[in-house]
């Protein structure tokens, strides 16, 4: 339904100067600022990955030196984790959609929102500078005492950059939590919230509680290196494992920061493109909270072989099995939603289906790793690398692309070219599996991670993986081209191109600066497709 007499000015037309963008308080513009930044970082991290895969195509270390290789995988990890994955869905799709989904005019703290982007950019600039003046070779995990005592690279600069970017995360999480609690439209009770918001809320809790621990940990690393306070130095009574406890207390929940928003997106996509409400809404909603909560109890599974006590290992292993349960609940409920749904295979749905399959593989291999005895065998091998890439890339990146396509009409007011998008989605799926499945095999065979020299019998798998990576690179570049094309030549989008429920679709595409002409009043639960094919909007 697209009839409106009065055409409000879209947020894109509220000022065309650079200044209007750089001083904006509009959550939609801030979302776009983030989108541009993280896209740039994605391709930087991808460039590092390309060089890594080129090197790994041959068993000898003939493309780059040992030190350069260390710097490449560190760059890849640092950039992809902190400057792409963590902000990806929350700071782009979240920032844009959350106020729209709750029927608000903006987030609770618009100026803090802009500040968070500036902090992100400052952290990015500092980190890039560290890379520019020589890089770091510690791995993204900055393990001590190598990072504090022996590395000859720019550790202090790099941790400073990440430290600054961490505050960006905290502000985003703070904004979402307060907004979801206090700025919902009338009638929008918790159990009427779309599942994307439940997931982002859970993500925000982790952002707010875990990131400060990373901050203090990195500060201590910098002080240890700079002033030699010896807190992680064994010769001064320090314990390197303390670093690992502190680091993983943040970094394990951090992986849930990365995957939970993706799960939220998938819930939206599965409902819309099955034209069915999400099966077991309450279970899916609370499972997000459970993942966020239990996710704080499992960090020691990264430390099974570190020298941690076996008793602690046992506890962490057990909790790691428990944390898989809510994720599994989601997968089952999405599957049940698909069952007897009225399925359409638009590009966002292809991404959602890809997520469900790839996340399941990644999640199941996580259970292998949760099993202490098995983890001892595959730890620090490519099995772990494959596991987390299935979740992070097969999961989060796939969901990010799915959400990007789904909300693209709302954000830009244009439709993307559907067949190009479907083609890219399928190519991503194939390229991804070809890149990362061989890595499971490599890991079981014993190929260590972070090595660029390996026995010749591993080469066949590496070549497969590198070939897959080249397909993946093309597949990821495709959206960059056709989405940009659509900005100028795409069909103009109606308010609700997918004819789905949800408040964000009850306002023009793109929305006006204040989102809604009048504050919507919510009358029903989300995903109301009671009459098949006919969506009833939440405020209708």
């Amino acid at each position: 339904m697209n009839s409106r007499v009065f055409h409000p000015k879209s947020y894109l037309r509220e000022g065309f100067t650079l200044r209007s963008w750089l001083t904006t308080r509009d959550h939609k513009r801030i979302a776009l600022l983030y989108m541009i930044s993280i896209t740039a970082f994605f391709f930087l991290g991808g460039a590092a990955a390309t060089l890594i895969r080129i090197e790994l195509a041959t068993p000898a270390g003939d493309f780059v030196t040992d030190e350069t290789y260390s710097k490449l995988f560190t760059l890849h990890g640092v950039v992809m984790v902190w400057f792409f994955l963590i902000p990806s869905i929350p700071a782009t799709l979240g920032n844009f959609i959350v106020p729209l989904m709750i029927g608000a005019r903006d987030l609770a703290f618009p100026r803090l929102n802009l500040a968070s982007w500036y902090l992100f950019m400052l952290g990015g600039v500092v980190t890039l500078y560290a890379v520019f003046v020589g890089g770091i070779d510690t791995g993204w995990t900055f393990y001590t005492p190598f990072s504090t005592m022996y590395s000859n690279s720019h550790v202090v600069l790099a941790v400073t950059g990440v430290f600054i970017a961490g505050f960006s995360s905290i502000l985003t999480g703070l904004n979402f939590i307060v907004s979801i609690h206090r700025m919902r439209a009338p009638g929008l009770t918790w159990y009427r919230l779309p599942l994307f918001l439940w997931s982002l809320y859970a993500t925000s809790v982790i952002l707010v509680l875990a990131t400060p621990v990373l901050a203090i940990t990195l500060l201590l690393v910098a002080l240890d290196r700079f002033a030699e306070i010896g807190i992680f130095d064994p010769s001064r009574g320090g314990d390197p494992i303390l670093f690992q406890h502190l680091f993983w207390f943040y970094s394990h929940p951090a992986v849930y920061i990365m995957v939970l928003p993706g799960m939220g997106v998938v819930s939206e996509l599965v409902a819309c493109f099955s034209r069915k409400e999400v099966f077991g809404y309450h279970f899916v909603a609370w499972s997000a909270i459970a993942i966020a909560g239990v996710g704080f109890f499992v960090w020691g599974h990264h430390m099974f072989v570190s020298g941690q006590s076996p008793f602690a290992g046992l506890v962490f292993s057990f909790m790691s099995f428990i944390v898989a349960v809510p994720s599994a609940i989601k997968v089952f409920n999405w599957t049940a939603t698909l069952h007897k749904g009225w399925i359409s295979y638009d590009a966002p749905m292809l991404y959602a289906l890809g997520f469900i399959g790839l996340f399941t593989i990644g999640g199941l291999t996580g259970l292998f790793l949760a099993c202490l005895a098995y983890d001892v065998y595959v730890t620090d091998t490519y099995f772990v690398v494959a596991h987390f890439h299935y979740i992070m890339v097969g999961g989060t990146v796939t969901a990010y692309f799915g959400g990007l396509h789904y909300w693209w009409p709302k954000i830009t007011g244009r439709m993307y070219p559907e067949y190009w998008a479907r083609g890219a989605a399928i190519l991503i799926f194939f390229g991804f599996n070809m890149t990362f499945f061989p890595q499971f095999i490599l890991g079981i065979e014993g190929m260590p991670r972070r090595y660029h020299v390996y026995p010749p019998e591993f080469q066949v798998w590496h070549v497969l993986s590198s070939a897959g990576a080249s397909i993946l690179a093309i597949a990821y570049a495709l959206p960059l081209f056709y989405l940009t094309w659509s900005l100028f030549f795409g069909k103009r989008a109606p308010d609700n191109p997918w004819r789905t429920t949800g408040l964000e679709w009850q306002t023009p595409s793109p929305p006006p600066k204040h989102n809604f002409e009048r504050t919507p009043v919510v009358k029903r639960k989300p995903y109301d497709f009671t009459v098949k094919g006919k969506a009833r909007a939440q405020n209708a």
Partner: protein
Amino acid sequence: MPDTRLAEQFVDLRQQHDVAELGIWVFLATEVLFFGGLILAYCVYRSIQPAGFAEAAHHTKIVIGAANTAILMTSSFLVAWAVTITKLGEARFAGLLLWAAALLGLVFIGLKGLEYTLEYREHLLPGLGFDYPGQHAIAAHLFFSFYLVATGLHAVHVAIGIAVLAVIGRRARQAAYSGACHAPMTVAGLYWHFVDLVWVFLFALIYLPGRSG
């Protein structure tokens, strides 16, 4: 000149106040975890070297520490007083109380500086000519590393708090706040109380061990 500007994303002043209060509590939770990492380090190392930590703690200046605790708690009292009477319309007087609290904060920083100077002269500060006799040198180094980082970070928070109190105090003096609209004062107050709270715990961990040896 009342500050009744309602920000455009809010429905009413009450929502604006509620949101500000919730926001600062979320922020304070992040601060608990920020200092918490240091607390973990303290717990780990103290449990490994209890005797060493106790002996090292004996060298801290309890008189200055106790005075600082009393100063901070008093300033917290002044701030709580100020927030309460602002709701009754006494913003101007509250401004004076906030400035007094900020002044006490400055005294805190001054005493801290004095303390650091004395410890520097006694070669107790890691990275600054640390030299500790006896078998517990390593434990002492760890203890004073924790001491320096924790109290240093805390002092940074105090400094920020002083600036905030000074600014909010000035706006209060200009009667910018009232019963209906005092969110910035609530937020500033909660921040300052939190800084006090952290110090209460740091005092117990730093100044009290090993006194009965």
